């Protein structure tokens, strides 16, 4: 497949890097330095020029391209580039936008503006944060099969009640599968007698009810989330406030800039907007940050988010979440005490990966900075899985694949060794990164 990527910024480069192995990738950027860097660092063709001009697009070979990904930092450029490409090419176009207003337009009329897939990064990041907030203790949450199946990742600590138990002891839930344990650099596929250790990240797949029950077992002290403090009113903070209000979760937002605060207060009728320096400890204490269930740092820069998240945690917030633009820092954030670091760029990567595997996967969740993936796949009649009990068919799949759940005609099916997978079932599988392609081939 020939892929043209416009914008060699962080998103563009990381998308290019993940696609370069299997596809022909051309990257366009205005900045000749970036173009040079890319030419040597990745096995891609880098073109210097304006992605919204026909000449540059032609130079990049848009005529033969199958896919165009416009992911510069400028929404308008991305939209216009897709529209321009559409005039001379049949390539599938993906545009990254930050501003949700464009997304609203596009959702109302899909394919509008010459864009086949519009990915709203801010909204996606906000959604993933709100999903995590909704499940106490979880570090990552995703839904599959129209919400029928939920995947969640939990960290085991010394205080976690099930730490030290074997999986068989811990798994007292009907519709729940312990899909994997991420232990240091390893991905462990657990069996009944695998022990859960302090520091493990456990990935579970199951029905939303049993995942919530599991979350309550892990965090028995947490009641319903009733007080969320959003520190910083950047676009992601704004989207989070909107989503929380939609779900009737009380939330407050702190914004230092008076004009921005006024704008936010007008646009978010159900959010209490506070105008003050978000790193002012006295102010935070006055606003009872020690009673806050979740504090989210969305101040627009990684440094300030880190400071804010640590400060919230220090002052007594039960959980602190920080947005981190540079994915390399995610681990660092979590190492120094931030409970969850969310990278908005991961969201777009997930979307784009989902698309590039469209023929196979319905939905993709990337686990822990691309160490593994959870995929939703619709099984067709040629699949090796159809018509056989799982304990037989699993042998045809690579080692380390776990079938976590099955959705059949809108109902949840618990996968057991003797369960027979039928045509058109949606299965949710866990696979480590290195065997994802192989797994999809086999299914």
């Amino acid at each position: 497949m020939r892929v043209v990527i416009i914008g060699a910024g962080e998103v563009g480069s990381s998308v290019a890097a993940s696609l370069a192995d299997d596809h022909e990738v051309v990257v366009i950027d205005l900045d000749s330095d970036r173009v040079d860097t890319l030419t040597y660092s990745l096995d891609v063709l880098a073109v210097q020029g304006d992605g919204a001009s026909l000449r540059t697009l032609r130079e990049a070979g848009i005529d033969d391209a199958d896919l165009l990904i416009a992911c510069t930092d400028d929404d308008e450029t991305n939209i216009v580039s897709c529209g321009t490409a559409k005039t001379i090419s049949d390539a599938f176009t993906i545009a990254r936008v930050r501003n949700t207003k464009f997304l609203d337009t596009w959702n109302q009329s899909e394919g509008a503006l010459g864009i086949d897939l519009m990915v709203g990064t801010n909204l996606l990041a906000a959604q993933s944060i709100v999903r995590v907030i909704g499940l106490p203790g979880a570090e990552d949450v995703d839904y599959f099969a129209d919400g029928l199946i939920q995947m969640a990742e939990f960290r085991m600590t010394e205080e976690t009640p099930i730490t030290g138990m074997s999986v068989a002891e811990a798994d007292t839930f009907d519709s729940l599968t312990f899909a994997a344990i991420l232990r240091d650099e390893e991905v462990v596929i657990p069996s009944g007698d695998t022990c859960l250790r302090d520091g493990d990240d456990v990935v579970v797949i199951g029905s939303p009810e049993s995942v919530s029950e599991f979350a309550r077992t892990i965090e028995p002290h947490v009641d319903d989330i009733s007080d969320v403090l959003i520190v910083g009113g950047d676009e992601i903070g704004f989207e989070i406030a909107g989503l929380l209000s939609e779900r009737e979760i009380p939330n407050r937002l702190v914004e230092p800039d008076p004009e921005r605060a006024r704008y936010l207060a007008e646009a978010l009728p159900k959010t209490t907007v506070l105008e003050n320096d978000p790193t002012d400890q006295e102010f935070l204490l006055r606003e009872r940050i020690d009673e806050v269930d979740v504090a989210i740092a969305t101040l627009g820069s990684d440094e300030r988010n880190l400071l804010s998240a640590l400060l919230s945690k220090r002052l007594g917030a039960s959980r602190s979440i920080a947005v981190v633009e540079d994915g390399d820092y995610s681990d660092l954030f979590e190492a120094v005490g931030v409970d969850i670091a969310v990278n908005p760029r991961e969201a777009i990567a997930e979307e784009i990966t989902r698309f590039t595997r469209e023929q196979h996967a319905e939905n993709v969740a990337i686990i822990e900075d691309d160490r593994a993936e959870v995929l939703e796949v619709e099984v067709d009649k040629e699949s090796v899985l159809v018509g056989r009990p799982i304990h037989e068919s699993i042998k045809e799949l690579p080692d380390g694949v776990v079938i976590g759940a099955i959705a059949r005609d809108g109902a949840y099916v618990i996968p057991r060794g003797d369960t027979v997978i039928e045509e058109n079932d949606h299965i949710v599988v866990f696979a480590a990164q290195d065997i994802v392609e192989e797994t999809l081939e086999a299914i």
Partner: protein
Amino acid sequence: MSWRVDWQASVGLLGTGLKYLAVTMFVPLFVAVVYMEDIWVFALSIVLVMALGFALERIDPDPDVGAREALLFVSLAWFTAALVGTIPYLLAGFGTGSTLANPVNALFESMSGFTTTGATVMGQIGLEHHSHALLIWRQLTQWLGGMGIIVLMIAILPEVAVNGAQLMASEAPGPELQKLTPKIAETARVLWLIYFGFTIAYVVVMYGLHLAGFAPNMNLYNAVAHGFTTLPTGGFSPHAESIAYFSAAVQWAAIPFLVVAGVNFALFWHVLKGEFDVMLENAEFRAYTGAIAVTTALLSLLLVRGAAPPLDIGGVTGGVTENTVRQAAFQIASLLNSTGYATSDFAQWDTHAQVFLLFVMFIGGSAGSTGGGVKVVRWLVVFKTIRRELYTTAHPDVVKPVRLTGSVVDEDAVRGIAAFTLLYVLLFGFSAVFISLDTARIGIELSTLEAVSASLATIGNIGPGFGRLGPFGNYEFFSDASKLLMVFLMWVGRLEIVPVLAVFISALDSD
């Protein structure tokens, strides 16, 4: 001293307005012909006003009206309309001993008419004392003033329409102008048509009741005459007993029309387009109807407990009867939005019931209605602002916009509304003091309720007050100085203070 205003433009436009005002005098002329009364009063009035109109128009035949000219024009237009409106009173009263032969009284009556106040200095009201034509003119002034004479001009005069938005914003009741259609003339026409439609409906219902035998006194003349003063929240009646002259059926039937008169007419435009939600979800509409419901219930309770003695007119005997509820509902529907009709002499009720009515008079109609007073929307904003102040005292960092029906009220508008309300209350207070002192000067001691209600009933364009100023009373005994102050109050009250005062202030500031 320069006013930095192109006053010729304002006056020229005024001339055009006067020509059309002369045309409206054909209505009483027609009535005079029908009842075979003296036609010369109105024939002469038409000629005089028409001549004045043509003369003023020549000052600037092609007026170019900007923001300040608009303010000056609107202020002048209302004052001139009131001045010109005195001509028939003076001509008809000349040599008859009528109180309206006095120019100050005539001006008071005329201003009370155009501003839809309804306060009267007419010594003896009734068709026995005055011609049908003169009394229908008195009614008509209120109908013309109700939706606004400027709005009417914009609707029918293309040359005014160009600068119409500016003009309409200065006249339309309420803090901001609502344009319903892209063209301002179209908006003005829509508002007048809705107004006209409700007036016709009122006449049809009332005359229908008469024909069906439920309203012996409501003949066609009375139906039209009251149609002219119900929708504009006017309150004039050709009968001394106001609506108490008519049957209970008429009183019940009038209540919904009274309520409608205080609703923002723009909401009916949405209803006509099938958007009922817009009306039902409107914060001001809900507050207005809610206020009517609550105050009616409270007043009913007071009346049931015997707050009103048995009276000759609209007596209430206490206890739960149809009469008690009707008196409560009618008085509230009439006084809350500044109409000023009465079916009971509430000036003779117990003091606590009168004080309650005084409180109700403070509320006013909705923005964009024909009602006077502070207006419900302003009270809503004022209360929300106060609540916000209290809240931010405890939470100093909170940013909290004031919202109405889900949309944010601009901070400038909030400030404007606070200033208006304060100005209104100040003007009301000072005037009450002035009227009280001035009346004592001529040897008449006013009660507190009388002094306060004289001020409130004129600045709020309500009409009747308490004591001697009750619904069946009269403002005639005041001195000329007090009457002229009240003329001023009615004028600034109708134009919502700001245009008139802005003209004065810009005059003072420019030397």
